[in-house]
């Protein structure tokens, strides 16, 4: 398990040369047979200009979308986001009850402890890759 954790940390740091850093990534473990789950992480922009996430993908899911849970007047709704702009030096959190990657139609069984790879597509064509462990709760 310790090796796995280090692997996750190491992979997290190797973000495809885009000067973006992904921290604390995890995928929510779901009951067997669930049609969907979510991925959470923090995205830090270490460049001198805006970084804009326009899409996300994963080999483990047929469909990945950027969503945000918005609670207003006591009602929770999900809004799809076409773009997430991260200003230079800023960190954007993808966190429960907020922004998240919505992961749909898993290609196989998703189990706790499994490590899943993701690509974040930026508007300038760069791809930020990271891996996230499937867990019931964040570390």
């Amino acid at each position: 398990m310790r090796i796995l954790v280090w692997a996750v940390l190491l992979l997290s740091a190797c973000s495809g040369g885009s000067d973006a850093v992904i921290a604390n990534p995890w995928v929510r473990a779901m009951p067997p047979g669930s049609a969907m789950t979510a991925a959470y992480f923090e995205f830090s922009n270490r460049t001198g200009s805006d970084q804009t996430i326009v899409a996300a993908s994963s080999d483990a899911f047929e469909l990945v979308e950027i969503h945000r849970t918005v609670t207003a007047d006591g009602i929770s709704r999900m809004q799809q986001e076409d773009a997430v702009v991260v200003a230079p030096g800023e960190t954007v959190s993808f966190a429960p009850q907020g922004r998240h990657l919505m992961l749909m139609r898993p290609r196989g069984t998703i189990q706790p402890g499994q490590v899943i790879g993701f690509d974040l597509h930026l508007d300038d064509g760069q791809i930020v890759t990271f891996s996230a462990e499937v867990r019931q709760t964040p570390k």
Partner: protein
Amino acid sequence: MSVPLRIIAAILALLALGAGAYTAYRLQSAGPAAPDDIDATIFNAPRPIPGFALTDHNGEAFDPKRLQDHWTLLFFGFTHCPDVCPTTLNTLARSRALLSDLPASLQPEVVLISVDPERDTVEKLRDYVPFFDPTFIGVTGTTAEIDALTAALGVAHMKVPREDGDYTVDHSSAIFLIDPTGRQAALFSAPHEAASLAARYKATISYLERR
């Protein structure tokens, strides 16, 4: 969903909201005020819940008798929900663990009632709900029965079609506290966090047991 159906759904949701707001107004104007230092909406007069006939994840009848003789935390959600519902169920599981020092008679039973009965079958809930905590109870039923109960409690929920033909459900994120006689006693608004929810629960039932 066709446009007329969406309009009907929107009207129903507004009616549910209106009923909830009216009842909240009516209850606020009766009886002694609850203390301000408890982060909960405590009804001055606990509100009876009209009869309902639903089914739990074991296929057993879930009716008003199931809310008797214990405190209940009721949450409305659905299994095709990637963020809010599993987050809330995990939070409820951790809250319940934090409440394990309470006498058994004061520990809450936790119930998830589906607002997506078309997809949330008894079997689906049996796979889903106990995953978060083996004591949790998942409940589903006919669309008419679910709509009647949610309208009575002022729980708004609305199907929202997705571009790919699928749909999601917008819904109230509050957690309802039902007293041991099966009446709606209080509600806790989102966002929910385990330690604070446990503290809000303790403070509320302590106040209600003394009242």
